[in-house]
């Protein structure tokens, strides 16, 4: 049972390390999906919107971490 719990925790850990980053990715994908479903984002821009938002999320996460102990 302990092994199974450890395995499940490790599997969760594969995807979620920094909770803020994971929630950010989820929010961005949900937002882009919503905008695409409402046809606010044309098909040609869906990928670029996703890319820009994820790059911004990653940059914010890294800079925040780097400044954390200032």
């Amino acid at each position, binding site marked *: 049972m302990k*092994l199974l719990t*450890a*395995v499940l925790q*490790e*599997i969760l850990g*594969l*995807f*979620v*390390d*920094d909770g803020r*980053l*994971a929630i950010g*990715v*989820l929010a961005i*994908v949900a937002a*882009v*999906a919503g905008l*695409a479903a409402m046809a606010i984002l044309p*098909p*040609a*821009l*869906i*990928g670029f919107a*996703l*890319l820009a938002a*994820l*790059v911004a*999320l*990653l*940059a914010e*996460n*890294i*800079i925040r*971490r*780097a*400044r954390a*102990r*200032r």
Partner: protein
Amino acid sequence: MTNWTAATSAVSAAFLASLVEVVEAFTIVLAASVVRGWRPALAGAAAALAVLAALVLSLGPLIGRIPLDGLRVGIGFLLLLFGLRWLRKAILRAAGLIPLHDEESAFAEEAEELRGLARFQPSRADFIAGLAAFKAVLLEGVEVVFIVIAVGTGRGLLVPASLGALAACVLVLAVGAVVHRPLSRAPENTLKFLVGVMLSAFGVFWTAEGLGGQWPGADVALPSLAAVFGLVALGLVQAARACAPVAELART
């Protein structure tokens, strides 16, 4: 051109990611074998491979039943979580904000822990060593299976991606068998950096396609996405170094 681009990207991502995972698993199996001999270590590793094979055989057919767009969004989302997590860690390590992973110290820690457990429970020492090997191969193997499925499913490239992963296993086992010590000279953070870049690019690509997006040049967009993530990540390493307090960098 399009198929070659997707296939090359899938094989490279599966090979590089598997290289990292197999090196980590090899370190633990080697520690178990050094402490208790090859027999329990190989038995544990073989049992884990059997569980992984059962997992692939039971889950594989289910993937074919999921509608392609839903599959792309689901796998793309998981790839984003997985790839950005690796990329974030590799950037922080490259910037000196968190320590690099060290196979030699991982090996020494595992061997010491196993020796300690063997002293307390001598009658179960072989079982404990086998269990350590089993757990390491299973956990790292699950990551390999996920990566192969994730990069291979979207364009029907499961076989090439599997061959990429298999090549990494063969390479690590061949080198490991010769040197018979942890493969600490493998440039692990550089590999993780590259894998993070590639998996993030695949994640954006599949998620956008699953949501109805269209990429200019179709599959040819994949290397361009990887280039964007790579350049951004290199820039973030510099930015993180500039932002971090000097005392913290000096400590790592």
